[in-house]
């Protein structure tokens, strides 16, 4: 029986035609009659006590059904530290924090109600930077820090400070490392906050039915976490909570955090359980909802005169804003991968999560890895320059390899990491490095190329789990049901391909349940961390095994032979040595019926699950431990053309060579890596949430917060290395975030070379270059 492989073959996404016809339904498209609309009144200052809130006028306003404030149901939330009230109580800690929620018949009536609420604040000193937050007599943002409940027991907030956590890496012997070093280079960095900017803003609906079911409809990467959190915070029996997530209009980590779900539930409970919708405007989404961390860093690296790195010391301060959310976990990621994909035997790293009065934070594509990558990759270029070495040579010379140890002293293998040297060599080739990395053109412009390597682990909980259920249709096709949200990269199709490959059948005959309904969909931890292919992929392979076993058991009866003689392909079970003797899946779907009419077995339902195994928490003092099963490595480059006449530049090329283990859907894989680079170039060139000295956000619309537009993109080069990860489905590693991670560093390396100035801060716009070169004088032209 012939079979065509489904892996490594470009497969049109399962939901593709829905997305080009307007038929694809996102949560924001779920428009229902008799749904109330909620609007949020937000804090107008960044830090202050709430002296009074007068909701009388709003309550009496036309169409308003209820107004709730922080007193309505006081509770603290947070996935790592329970530090955040969904609605501010007594105190506000960032500009844009929810202070009250108005529920009304229509959006305009809710908005009118919001405008009638009177709030008086007693302003408190604003902590507008990490530096201010860490001063000995700093204003405390959380007076009760140290007493908050921490759902993650490996986080260590420091009482009477603004420090949410401190992750330490102590590897090797620093004195030895420095003594073996011939050269030492130091560097600093500052990376600003930025926004996820998913095209669908966050939005949620909630209702509480008369029978006590809490239905949450939400655009989320974490529907199962929503269920768990609502259970914990509001004491709703978990089985009574059903979270529904249809297609998600972009997420990038920003919809992993639970945010509007709390408000929608509270709002519904305030109006006798009626359906309430809460939808962020774009400005709300940027201002109220969490965004990316900002980071400051100080680094010092030592190497021999031959360029062998001997020691790395780094300190990162992570600006988590007013509430920690997953900030401390990103700080941990930065620490555990602080060396980049290089073998460094002596490492001293501190990664400190700090509260400020900026907007709060959550995961964003790369989960902190953009920070440590920027740190080490800028440092390596400076080191290479000092040693008069080629940027590729220094990276290849120190590339991490089998048998080395990670900063957390985990053993590196080719399988668990991939081949960074191969990525670098391929990158060198595709970027025509031999023509030189700095070329002066006849036009007077300068073309430069910068590179960066990266690696990334998932840093998931030590018990993250995933499940798959398979049922069959009467035509023998398979229904595939699992709990990852389809947020864009096409994981629903990827998993279908993995199943098709294992079942040796056409992927067309696998039907994917595209939405998530936590009551009927098997749990998937969260659709984050580039872990879906790995986790659900392993679960679906286990489910396929179960399905094949059941089919063979019943097929053996039907074909009157031993199960051991049976094989499957093309939705048939056949005798290995006599392929002409077979029975089709469709004849076994509901059990088997003998010619006499008697039936046995019943319908086939198969299941499979996966749980992360073998992970351990990190030691508090040394960081020793195993935080992930694997890394993905990649090498990236950016080529730019700089015009020294007017300090402007153009993006010419951006390239990624990534060790994908195995590429499952080539065009989709190329797309997700390219899209990652596009986001990385945004961070590199323009994206920046700007706060004034009172920590008031200045750019909360798409007119002031600029994204890359069509035509501003460079030529993209995407290439793959395929070093299988043994424990991954068909060897496939996660690749969804990685395109973003190293691009800002590669870009900064290229710009520094072109301009002749070291750029250690992002974004690097024409204006930044002009200011750097001229001091910002108006008459500089």
């Amino acid at each position, binding site marked *: 029986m012939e079979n065509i492989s489904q892996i490594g073959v470009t497969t049109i996404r399962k939901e593709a035609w829905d997305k*080009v016809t307007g038929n694809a339904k996102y949560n924001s498209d779920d428009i229902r009659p008799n749904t109330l609309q909620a609007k949020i009144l937000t804090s107008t200052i960044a830090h202050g006590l709430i002296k009074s809130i007068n909701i009388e006028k709003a309550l009496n306003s036309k169409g308003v059904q209820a107004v709730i404030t922080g007193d309505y149901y006081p509770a603290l939330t947070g996935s790592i530290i329970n530090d955040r009230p969904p609605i501010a109580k007594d105190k506000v800690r960032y500009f844009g924090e929810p202070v009250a929620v108005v529920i009304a018949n229509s959006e305009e009536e809710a908005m009118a109600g919001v405008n009638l609420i009177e709030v008086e604040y007693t302003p408190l000193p604003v902590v507008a930077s990490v530096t201010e937050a860490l001063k000995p007599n700093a204003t405390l943002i959380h007076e009760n820090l140290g007493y908050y409940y921490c759902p993650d027991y490996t986080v260590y907030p420091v009482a009477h400070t603004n420090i949410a956590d401190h992750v330490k890496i102590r590897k090797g012997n620093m004195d030895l490392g420095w003594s073996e070093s011939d050269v030492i280079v130091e560097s600093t960095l500052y990376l600003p906050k930025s926004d996820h900017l998913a095209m669908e803003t966050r939005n949620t609906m909630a209702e509480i039915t008369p029978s006590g079911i809490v239905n949450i409809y939400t655009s989320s990467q974490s529907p199962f976490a929503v269920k768990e959190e609502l259970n914990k915070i509001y004491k709703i029996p978990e089985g009574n909570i059903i979270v529904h997530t249809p297609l998600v209009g*972009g*997420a990038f980590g920003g919809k992993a955090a639970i945010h509007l779900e709390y408000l929608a539930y509270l709002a519904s409970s305030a109006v006798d359980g009626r359906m309430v919708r809460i939808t962020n405007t*774009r400005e709300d989404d940027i201002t109220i909802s969490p965004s990316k961390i900002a980071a400051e860093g100080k680094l010092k690296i030592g190497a021999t005169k031959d360029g062998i790195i001997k020691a790395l010391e780094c300190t990162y301060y992570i600006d988590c804003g007013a509430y920690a959310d997953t900030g401390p976990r990103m700080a941990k990621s930065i620490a555990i991968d602080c060396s980049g994909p290089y073998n460094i035997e002596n490492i001293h790293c501190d990664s400190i999560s700090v509260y400020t009065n900026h907007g709060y934070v959550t995961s964003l594509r790369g989960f902190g890895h953009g920070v440590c990558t920027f740190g080490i990759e800028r440092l390596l270029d400076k080191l290479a320059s000092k040693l008069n070495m080629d940027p590729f040579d220094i990276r290849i010379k120190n590339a991490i390899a089998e048998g080395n140890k990670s900063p957390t002293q985990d053993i590196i293998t080719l399988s668990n990491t991939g081949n960074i040297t191969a990525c670098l060599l391929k990158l060198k080739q595709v970027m025509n490095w031999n023509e030189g990395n700095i070329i002066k053109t006849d036009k007077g412009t300068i073309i430069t190329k910068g590179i960066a390597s990266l690696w990334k682990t998932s840093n998931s909980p030590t018990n993250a789990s995933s499940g798959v259920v398979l049922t069959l249709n009467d035509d023998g096709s398979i229904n595939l049901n699992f709990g990852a949200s389809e947020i864009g990269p096409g994981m629903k199709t990827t998993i279908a391909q993995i199943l098709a490959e294992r079942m040796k059948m056409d992927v067309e005959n696998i039907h994917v349940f595209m939405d998530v309904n936590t009551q009927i969909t098997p749990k998937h931890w969260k659709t984050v961390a580039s872990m879906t292919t790995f986790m659900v992929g392993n679960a679906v392979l286990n489910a396929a095994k179960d399905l094949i076993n059941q089919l063979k058991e019943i097929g053996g009866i039907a074909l009157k032979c031993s199960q051991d003689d049976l094989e499957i392909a093309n939705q048939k079970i056949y005798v290995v040595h006599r392929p002409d003797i077979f029975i089709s899946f469709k004849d076994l779907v509901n059990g088997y019926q003998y010619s006499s009419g008697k039936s046995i077995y019943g319908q086939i339902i198969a299941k499979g699950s996966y749980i992360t195994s073998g992970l351990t928490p990190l030691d508090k003092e040394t960081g020793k431990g195993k935080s992930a099963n694997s890394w993905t490595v990649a090498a990236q480059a950016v080529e730019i053309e700089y015009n020294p006449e007017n300090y402007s530049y153009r993006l010419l090329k951006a390239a990624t060579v990534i060790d994908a283990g195995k590429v499952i859907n080539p065009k*989709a894989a190329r797309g997700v890596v390219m899209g990652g680079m596009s986001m990385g170039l945004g961070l590199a060139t323009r994206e920046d949430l700007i706060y004034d000295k009172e920590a008031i956000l200045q750019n909360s619309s*798409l*007119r002031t917060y600029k994204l890359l537009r069509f035509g501003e993109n460079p030529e993209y080069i995407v290439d793959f290395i395929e070093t299988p990860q043994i424990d991954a489905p068909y060897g496939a590693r996660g690749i969804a975030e990685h395109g973003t991670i190293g691009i800002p560093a590669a870009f900064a390396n290229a710009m520094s070379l072109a301009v002749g100035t070291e750029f250690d801060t992002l974004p690097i716009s024409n204006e930044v270059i002009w200011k750097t070169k001229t001091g910002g004088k108006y008459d500089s032209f």
Partner: protein
Amino acid sequence: MFEILNPTIITLNINGEDRDVMVKPSHTLLYTLRNELGLTGAKPGCENGDCGACTVLVDDWPIKSCLMLTVEAIGKKVLTVEGLKNAPIQKAFVENFGFQCGYCTSGFLMVCHSLSKIRPNADDAEIQDWLQSNLCRCTGYEEIEDAVKSILVKDI
């Protein structure tokens, strides 16, 4: 000239059909399409004219439906993504992977479809000029460029 001061029933030509809808003077075309007609293909992304996710065609030209009042569409032909029937650009987007999450897709499809009708010979500069109206956060734009170029006249 006409004046609409209160909620009123008006007739709009949507996807080739005359449809009666209730409007308030302040309703945007985006609001009416989504909330009154259930045509949710046009998406709110910023409701400020910056992102283009709500783009529809009005008398064949791309218009951001969040910036147009519904009453301004009286007497005009409105085409939404739901009204595209096997337009070449739809297949081109599918085959070129011109989307990931798909939220911006309707808007891009309408701009590209209009471009292919109004400027079938568009060169790179004109393509860029038209498509800079819309934002995509998932792709690298290259996929969208490949898709639109595949339906434009190629001998230029």
